[in-house]
């Protein structure tokens, strides 16, 4: 048959006129009848009409419509089943939709830069001299440099405010290939001394602080007390190197300032990124990096570690930006995929059960002439409608799920803000819905359509167990158990890790401590006495606030993300290439800091008010630092010097280790120790007194009500000084692992969802097999089987499948745990306690789920059960 366009058009025409056609046909047949009155009656008018109608209409669509109406009636008739199946599908589909939007935006979609596949990151960090050398010598790359985000004071534009910014090489925006929204990007030479007082704003900053005024170009703003001219505004959505960065200032390139040029001052050691030039290959770039780094090493004016940076590698910029989040995303993606699989399996198993109980209804349809294909199609329509319901609900759930998943990722991840439920996600949900509908629908539909008409109609239907499909259901349950074990083990390992993290002694006691960040401009502290006086006065007044026990100030508090450090000279340890100046974490604290934080003094003494700007330099070492450099010796009385200074400082005591950088106790690479200086004697990069400090207050009771008073006090003291975050120390501690906590929460909720579904599946399987075996059970009881015998018989059957699932699940969980091993802390990926716990727990749940129907079976009256249909 030729299905031409003309025929299709006629078909549409016929279809639209089918009422008139029907009238005409009736008239025509009437005429026919009138003429052939003499003939013996032959032919059936109804058939003629029906068949004609079929010619006019689109049967496929009409059948589909019928199927759909029928399906929705079936689903409405068993609301419990529909709600359960729809909800589990919605959970699975919604979770996957949210996860898809994250993975698509963060891992798959190219970076929002020009030709992002040509952008690379050179691992390790380089001084400014490295940038210059790379720009001079590289033939394969255009190289730029970006400092990591740092806080700056923006003044002269409304209330003084502290904002994150990044110092970048003048060519950064051209290397990334992102044009400015208005104004201009930095020009070559904007990073030379004298012409480097410009700034580029983010779109968000431009709109929030400058009312999106286009006249902002050329305006002068004050950033950390330096007047800078606004030259450009970046387009909305641009965020690099971190989501919180609001402005970019040029990095100063000044070879005459040797320390700043080669050294680590103000985050000068920072990452290099590059764009491969046209025609250049990655291999060429690698070769160049090695050669140029070696050249750079030979230029340093002081000894550097041997083979400094020679292990630098090239990774794609995308890989660099996503970093270790990739692994976490993959774990979450796998988990949420498993949840959907469990949901599908569960619905398939429930549908299989329904298929057997609906056997009579289907047999009736078959005997009325429905073909096997038609029945399969009918049942598949039901599954697809179910999946569609789940898909729509899932799409709504995805919005909630996305905000939960987001909390499991670092807040500063560039691009995280752009993740949204959009058309692409909706398309993904549509595909997923179709796939799940077919996946869980096909087996039940096939099983239901395999019907022995005569036998079913005779009435033995309920009793006859179809061997294959009953076993198939068992396998589905086993698969569900397998997947559930995987998720439970994952969640269990994370829970144990979190417990280990919470149990960690971080080296201080965070209870009832408030911290207030106070950040005068660095220039305020040019005159050291002025800064010291500011904090002395603040501490004095804070101590008078009712409810305050102790007060202290420190340049950084543990786990707040700041990590001040200094290169150190150590007495009697001359620097060589094998022993370069070690970098120490460098705390600047007032006398009461250690007792306030309950950091113990292990040897010598702590600081007192007597350690002042005019007395001899005193430092404290952390316990592990003392052990590292003076193993077996007493370090008290020995000397340290900040590299570049002339005066030596005396070690007056050793204090307990504090987890400064992360709760798990890890330190950033390249840090070789930790020391404390009295605030009045302290220096930070550039040999100035640290200006930005934290006020710490230990209170008698709940610190929350006091927070406002302390804040007001600080603002009153000097209105030009931005008072930043006021935060309880405990919330800083828990905040440092909040994304870990969220990851665990997400995985745990996945595992619980899977577990509930599996329990429902097992319960359904056993209840159903009890119904099917009613007759057999009756016979057994009549022959003398005891109630425990019956319970054992029923439970034994289901527990065999559960046991199989557990065995397979343990194997799969080992692989899954290896995938997530980098997320774990203080617990092995093969932690036997977790595995044993999960196995016992799962068997317990499975036993509970199957014991109820088994017990009901044992309570049956054998006489009644023998009479069953």
């Amino acid at each position, binding site marked *: *048959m030729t299905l031409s366009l*003309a*025929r299709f058009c*006629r*078909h549409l025409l*016929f279809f639209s006129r089918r009422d008139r*056609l029907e009238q*005409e*046909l009736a*008239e*025509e*047949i009437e*005429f*026919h*009848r*009138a*003429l*052939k009155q003499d003939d*013996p009656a*032959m*032919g*059936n*008018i109804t*058939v*003629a*009409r029906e*068949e*004609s109608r*079929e*010619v*006019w209409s689109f049967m496929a669509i009409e059948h589909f419509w019928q199927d759909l109406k029928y399906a929705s009636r079936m689903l409405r008739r068993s609301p419990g089943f529909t709600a359960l199946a729809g909800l589990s599908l919605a959970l699975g589909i919604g979770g996957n939709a949210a996860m898809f939007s994250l993975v698509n935006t963060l891992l798959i979609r190219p970076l929002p830069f020009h030709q992002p596949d040509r952008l690379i990151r050179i691992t390790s960090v380089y001084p400014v001299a490295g940038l210059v050398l790379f720009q001079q010598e590289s033939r394969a790359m255009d190289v730029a440099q970006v400092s990591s985000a740092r806080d700056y004071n923006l003044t002269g534009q409304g209330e003084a405010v502290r904002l994150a910014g990044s110092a970048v090489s003048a060519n950064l925006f051209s290397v990334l290939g992102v044009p400015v929204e208005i104004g201009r990007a930095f020009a070559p030479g904007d990073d030379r001394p004298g012409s480097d007082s410009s700034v580029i704003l983010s779109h968000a900053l431009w709109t929030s602080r400058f009312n999106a005024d286009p006249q902002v170009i050329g305006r002068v703003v004050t950033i950390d007390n330096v007047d800078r001219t606004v030259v450009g505004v970046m387009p909305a959505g641009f965020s690099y190197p971190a989501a919180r960065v609001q402005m970019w200032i040029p990095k100063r390139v000044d070879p005459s300032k040797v320390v700043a040029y080669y050294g680590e001052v103000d985050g000068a050691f920072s990452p290099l990124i590059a764009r491969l030039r046209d025609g250049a290959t990655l291999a060429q770039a690698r070769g160049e990096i090695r050669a140029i780094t070696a050249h750079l090493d030979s230029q340093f004016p002081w000894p550097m570690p041997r083979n400094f940076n020679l292990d630098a590698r090239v990774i794609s910029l995308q890989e660099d930006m996503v970093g270790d989040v990739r692994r976490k995303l993959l774990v979450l993606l796998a988990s949420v995929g498993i949840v959907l699989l469990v949901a599908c399996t569960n619905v398939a198993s429930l549908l299989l059960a329904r298929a057997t109980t609906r056997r009579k209804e289907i047999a009736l349809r078959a005997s009325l002439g429905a073909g096997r294909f038609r029945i399969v199609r009918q049942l598949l329509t039901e599954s697809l409608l179910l999946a569609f319901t789940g898909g729509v609900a899932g799409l709504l759930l995805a919005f909630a799920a996305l905000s939960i998943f987001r909390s499991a990722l670092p807040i500063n991840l560039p691009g995280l803000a752009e993740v949204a439920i959009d058309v692409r996600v909706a398309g993904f949900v549509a595909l997923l819905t179709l796939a799940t509908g077919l996946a869980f629908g096909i087996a039940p539909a096939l099983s239901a359509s395999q019907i022995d008409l005569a036998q079913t109609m005779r009435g033995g239907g309920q009793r006859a167990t179809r061997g294959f499909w009953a076993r198939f259901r068992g396998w589905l349950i086993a698969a569900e158990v397998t997947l559930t074990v995987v998720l439970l083990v994952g969640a269990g390992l994370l829970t144990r890790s979190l417990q280990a993290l919470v149990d960690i002694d971080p080296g201080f006691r965070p209870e009832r401590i408030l911290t207030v960040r106070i950040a005068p401009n660095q220039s305020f502290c040019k005159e050291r006495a002025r800064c010291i006086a500011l904090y002395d006065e603040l501490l004095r007044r804070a101590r008078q606030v009712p409810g305050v026990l102790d007060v202290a100030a420190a340049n950084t508090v543990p786990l707040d993300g700041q990590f001040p450090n200094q290169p150190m000279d150590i007495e009697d340890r001359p620097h060589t290439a094998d022993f370069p100046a070690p970098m120490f974490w460098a705390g600047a604290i007032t006398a009461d800091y250690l007792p306030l934080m309950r950091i113990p003094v292990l040897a010598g003494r702590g600081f007192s008010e007597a350690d002042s700007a005019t007395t001899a330099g005193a430092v404290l070492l952390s316990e592990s630092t003392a052990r590292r450099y003076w193993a077996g010796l007493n370090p008290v009385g020995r000397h340290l010097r900040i590299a570049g200074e002339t005066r030596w400082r005396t070690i007056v005591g050793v204090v307990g280790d504090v987890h400064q950088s992360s709760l798990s106790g890890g330190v950033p690479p390249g840090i070789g120790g930790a020391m404390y200086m009295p605030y009045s004697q302290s220096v930070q990069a550039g040999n100035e007194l640290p200006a930005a400090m934290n006020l710490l207050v230990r209170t008698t009771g709940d610190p929350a009500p006091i927070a406002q008073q302390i804040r007001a006090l600080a603002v009153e003291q000097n209105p030009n000084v931005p008072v930043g975050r006021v935060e309880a120390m405990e919330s800083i501690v828990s905040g440092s692992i909040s994304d870990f906590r969220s990851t665990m929460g997400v995985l745990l909720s996945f595992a619980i969802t899977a577990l509930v579904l599996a329990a429902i599946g097992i319960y359904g399987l056993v209840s159903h097999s009890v119904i099917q075996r009613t007759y057999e059970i009756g016979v057994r009881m009549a022959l003398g089987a005891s109630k425990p015998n019956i319970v054992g018989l029923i439970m034994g059957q289901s527990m065999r499948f559960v046991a199989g699932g557990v065995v397979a699940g343990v194997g799969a969980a080992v692989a899954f745990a290896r995938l997530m091993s980098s997320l774990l802390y203080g617990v092995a990926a093969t932690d036997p306690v977790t595995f044993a716990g999960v196995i016992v727990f799962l068997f317990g749940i499975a036993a509970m789920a199957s014991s109820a129907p088994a017990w009901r079976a044992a309570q049956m009256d054998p006489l009644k059960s023998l009479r069953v249909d």
Partner: protein
Amino acid sequence: MGANNKAIEILPGTLDLLILRALVGGPRHGYGIAQRLRQVSDEVLQVGESSLYPALQRLLLNGWVRAEWGASDNNRRARYYTITAAGRKQLASECAEFARMMGAIQKVLETA
């Protein structure tokens, strides 16, 4: 149908062909087509309304016949069917096909 021993059930698929052939002589209404087939086949081929009218709808849909309302011999309103050019083409090709098949069947019946 088919209980009457002088009537024969029409081979499936050939009804369209027969209708088209019956229309080559000129426009006919439904009853006229049935009459024509019966006469020409010496009362062997009897077409009932239940198969005739759906078949005509199919032919209309395929564009092989056209239908127009007109007045019948006894001045009643009747629908007349006319074969179209496409219908003639279809008839020619189906006739050839049918002849080929009949020949083949004949051969098998005579020799096998």
